[in-house]
C-alpha cells in the first residue's frame, strides 16, 4: 500500500496495521505487555505547604508540647488515642477505623541531614530523593520508571498524577509519568482531528532520536494512553461515597483507575494549603478532615473491590513545623516530620518507632532519625521488588513494615 492510500483509507478513521509503532498496536489490542511490579501499586499523597506533624499525631502526654503551644495544642481529652503517647487529631476521625483494622503505620521523625526550610527546595529534595546539597532534575518515581521499563515499555500511564501539570517526582530521564485530572478530560483534549491524525504520524520517526521524533513519540503515547484509559474506565463508576471536594474527586479518580486494572504502578495526588503560619488550628483541621474523609472512602472502596492488599498509600509533606508556636497562633517552617502508610499488606501496623523527642531539638526543630529515602527504598525493594539502589543512587536501610 502506498503512503498516500494509507492515509486516505485509514489515517482518519482507525489505526492501520502497517507502520504503526509496537506500543500503539499493543494498546489498540488492549493487551498490555507484562510490566514489572506485579499487581502492586503505590498511591502517593503529598500534603503541600509543610503539614504540622505534631498536631496531626499529637504527643498528648508531653508537657513540653503543651508548654510550647499554649494556643494551638490539641487537648489530651480531644485526641483519639493510638497508644499511650500519641493520638490522632480529632479531625482525623475517619482514619480511626483504618488504624484499628491494622491497615496503617505511623513513622515518626522522618527527614534528611541538613534540612532545608524552603518549601520549594525541600519539596524538590523529597520528590527527587536527593541529598540536601544535591540538585537532581529527575524524580524518584520517574527513575523507577526508567529502571523498570529499560526502554522497552512505552506507556506513560505507568505513573499517573491526578493534576494538570506533572510533578518532578514523576519525571525520569527517559520516561515520564502522565498528568491528568480525569480520564474523560484527558481523552477530550486528545480528540481534535489534527491531534489524532498527528499521533499516527509517529511511525515516520520511529527509529530516529531527533527532537522531532521525541515529540511525535510523546504525542502518540499520550493519545493512545488517553484512548486506552478512556476505554478501560468508561464503564466504571464507583458508587462509593467520596467527598464532593477537589481532593475527594482526585482520590475517586484514582479508585476508578485502580479498578480498571491499567497496570499503573504509581498514582500521585496533592492536597495543599498546610503552610499554617497564622491561626493554624482552623486551617489545618479543615484540611486534615478533607484528607481523612477522602482516604477513608478510598480505602473502603479498595477493600470492597479486593484491591487493598496490593495497594500502599504513602502520605508525606515537605517538612514539619517548629515545635514552638509563633506569635500568630501558627507555626513556622520546621524539619523532621511524620510519614504514614496505609494498605492491606502491611507487615507491621501501628506506630513504627519512637515518638518525637521534644527535649532534644536542633534550632528549635525536631531531629530526624529515619531518612525518608529509607522509606522509598523499602517500598521500591519490598513492594515493587526492584533494585532500590539503582533508583536512589545509594544504599538506604530497609525498614521492616512490608
Amino acid at each position: 500500500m502506498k503512503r498516500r492510500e494509507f492515509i486516505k483509507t485509514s489515517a482518519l478513521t482507525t489505526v492501520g496495521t502497517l507502520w504503526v509503532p509496537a506500543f500503539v498496536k499493543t494498546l489498540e489490542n488492549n493487551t498490555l505487555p507484562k510490566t514489572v511490579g506485579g499487581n502492586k501499586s503505590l498511591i502517593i499523597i503529598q500534603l503541600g505547604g509543610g503539614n504540622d506533624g505534631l498536631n496531626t499525631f499529637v504527643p498528648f502526654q508531653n508537657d513540653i508540647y503543651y508548654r510550647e503551644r499554649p494556643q494551638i495544642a490539641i487537648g489530651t481529652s480531644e485526641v483519639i488515642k493510638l497508644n499511650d503517647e500519641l493520638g490522632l487529631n480529632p479531625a482525623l476521625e475517619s482514619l480511626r477505623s483504618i488504624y484499628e483494622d491494622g491497615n496503617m503505620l505511623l513513622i515518626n521523625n522522618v527527614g534528611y541531614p541538613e534540612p532545608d526550610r524552603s518549601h520549594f527546595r525541600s519539596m524538590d529534595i523529597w520528590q527527587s530523593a536527593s541529598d540536601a546539597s544535591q540538585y537532581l532534575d529527575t524524580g524518584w518515581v520517574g527513575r523507577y520508571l526508567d529502571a523498570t521499563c529499560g526502554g522497552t515499555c512505552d506507556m506513560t500511564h505507568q505513573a499517573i498524577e491526578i493534576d494538570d501539570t506533572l510533578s518532578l517526582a514523576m519525571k525520569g530521564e527517559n520516561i515520564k509519568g502522565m498528568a491528568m485530572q480525569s480520564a474523560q478530560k484527558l481523552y477530550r483534549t486528545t480528540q481534535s482531528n489534527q491531534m489524532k491524525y498527528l499521533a499516527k504520524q509517529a511511525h515516520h520517526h520511529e527509529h530516529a532520536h531527533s527532537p522531532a521524533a521525541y515529540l511525535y513519540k510523546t504525542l502518540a503515547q499520550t493519545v493512545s494512553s488517553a484512548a486506552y484509559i478512556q476505554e478501560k474506565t468508561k464503564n466504571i463508576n464507583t458508587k462509593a461515597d467520596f467527598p464532593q471536594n477537589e481532593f475527594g474527586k482526585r482520590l475517586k479518580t484514582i479508585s476508578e483507575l485502580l479498578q480498571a486494572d491499567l497496570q499503573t504502578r504509581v498514582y500521585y495526588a496533592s492536597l495543599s494549603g498546610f503552610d499554617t503560619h497564622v491561626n493554624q488550628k482552623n486551617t489545618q483541621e479543615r484540611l486534615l478532615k478533607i484528607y481523612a474523609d477522602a482516604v477513608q472512602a478510598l480505602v473502603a472502596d479498595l477493600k470492597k473491590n479486593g484491591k487493598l492488599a496490593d495497594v500502599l498509600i504513602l502520605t508525606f509533606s515537605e517538612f514539619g513545623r517548629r515545635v514552638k508556636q509563633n506569635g500568630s497562633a501558627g507555626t513556622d517552617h520546621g524539619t523532621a516530620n511524620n510519614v504514614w502508610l496505609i494498605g492491606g499488606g502491611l507487615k507491621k501496623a501501628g506506630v513504627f518507632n519512637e515518638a518525637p523527642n521534644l527535649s532534644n531539638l536542633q534550632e528549635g526543630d525536631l531531629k530526624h532519625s529515619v531518612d525518608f529515602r529509607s522509606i522509598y527504598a523499602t517500598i521500591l525493594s519490598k513492594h515493587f521488588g526492584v533494585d532500590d539502589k539503582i533508583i536512589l543512587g545509594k544504599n538506604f536501610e530497609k525498614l521492616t513494615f512490608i
Partner: protein
Amino acid sequence: MKPTQTQWQHLYWRAGFGASWADLQKLKQRNLQVEVRRLVNDGQKEPKKIVLLQGQTPKLAEAKQLSTAEKKALRKKLRLNVPKLNAAWIQEMQHSSSPLREKMAFFWHTHFACKHKNVYYAQIQLHLLRKNALGNFREMLHAIAKDPAMITFLNNQQNKKDQPNENFARELMELFTLGRGNYTEQDIKESARAFTGWAAHGDDFLFRIKQHDFDSKTFFGKTGNFHGEDIIEMILAKKETALFITNKLYKFLVNENINQQLTGRLADDFYQSNYDIAKLVEQMLVADWFYAPENIGTQIKSPVQLLVGMGKQLGMRFGNEFSPLFIQKILGQVIFDPPNVAGWKGGKSWIDSATLMFRLRLPEFIIKAAEIGIQNKEEDDAQKEDLKGNGFRSLSAEIHWEVILDLFKNNSKKQIYEQMQAYLLQTNPQLNQQAPWTFIQASQTEEQFKEIVAWLLAMPEYQLC
C-alpha cells in the same frame, strides 16, 4: 554565504526570539556578516533600565523604623511586582530592536539562575545582565558576586568570619565558572572564607570589614591573604572556565549536543580575548557550521522562546497581562523563578504529556479563544498569594492578521500554505501533501488563512527552532 530564508530565520530564532514578517522582508536584502555585526553592536549599547517600581530597598536602619505591619506590606509590594517585571521583560524581548541583547541576557539569567522576591533587586540584577549581556564575562562575574539579589539568594549575607557559609563559593565554581571536577571541597571551604563579609545593604553592596576573615587561605594550591576578588581572578585564570561557558553557550545557541572540537577552539579564543562575550557570540553566529542542517530546527523551544516567538510571528498581544506568566507556569519556566540554583534543565525535559498537549493546543486557546480548563498547581507557600491558581479561563489575544493577510490576497491556498510553513516551521513535517486539506476546510480567504496558521502552529515541528 548568502543565507536562505530558513537560515535567516535560524539566525533570528537563535540570536533572538524569532523573526517577525517585517524583519524577514528586510533581512532578505542584507549581508549576513553585516547583519550579525549589527546585532552584536546594538546589543553592546547600554540599554535603558527596565523599571517597574520606583524606589529602593530600605537599609537596615530605615527598616528598623518600620512597624511589623509596614514591613509586611512592603515585602508584599516588592514580591507582587516581580511577576510584573517578568511581563515587562517579556514585552521587551518581543519588541526590542536589539533581540540579541535580550536573548543573551536571558541566557545569563538561566546561567546565573536566581529566584527573586524583591522587585528592586530583580530590576538591578536584570539590568546588570542586560548591560553586560555582550560585554566582558570577567566584569560580569565580578559584578554578579556583588549583586544584592545574588548575595541574598546564595546566602552570602550569612557568610561571616566565625561561621562561614559556603553556598556562594560552591555555586560560583560548580555552576558559574568551572563546573564539577575542577576544584576540591577544600577549595570551596577556603574560598568561602575569602567572601566573608560580602553583604547586601539596601540595594548596595557592602564590605562588612568586621565579618571578613583576613587570615591566609590556601586556594588552588596557593597560599595568601586572598579576598573575594582574588578568588574570582584565580578562577578566571583557569582555562576550564572559558570552556565551561563556551560549552554552555554552544548548547544554548547552537545545539544540545556539544561538538567538542568546535567548542575547544572557541574556548581558546574566548580565553585569549580575555572573556570577550561579543566576540565569542559573533564567531558562532557567522560560522558556516552554525547554518548546517543538523543545527537548524533541532532545538526544543523553551517556554519563553515559544511564547515570545509566537508573539513576534503573529504580532500578538494578550488580553490579560498575566497570560504570559500563566503559560510560563504551566510549561515549567517562570522568569525570575528558576526551579533551583542550577536553573532549567532544558531540552527534552521541557516535554511531558501534559506540557506537550498544552503546547500543541496553545494556538487553539489563543487563535480560537477556546476555554483552557487547566489550572496551575496550587502554590504551597502562604507567602505567595500572588501566584495562587489564578482562575484563568481564556488566553485570548489580539493578533495583527492584517499585516500578513494583505500579502496573500491573490495567492492560492497552496501557495499560502507553503509560504506560511516556510515562515513558521524551521523543519518540515513529513506529511502527505494532501493531509492538511482534510482539516483546513474554510473557503473564505481570511478564515482559510487563520486555519492554515492554526494548523501549522499546532504541528509538533512548531515546538522546534
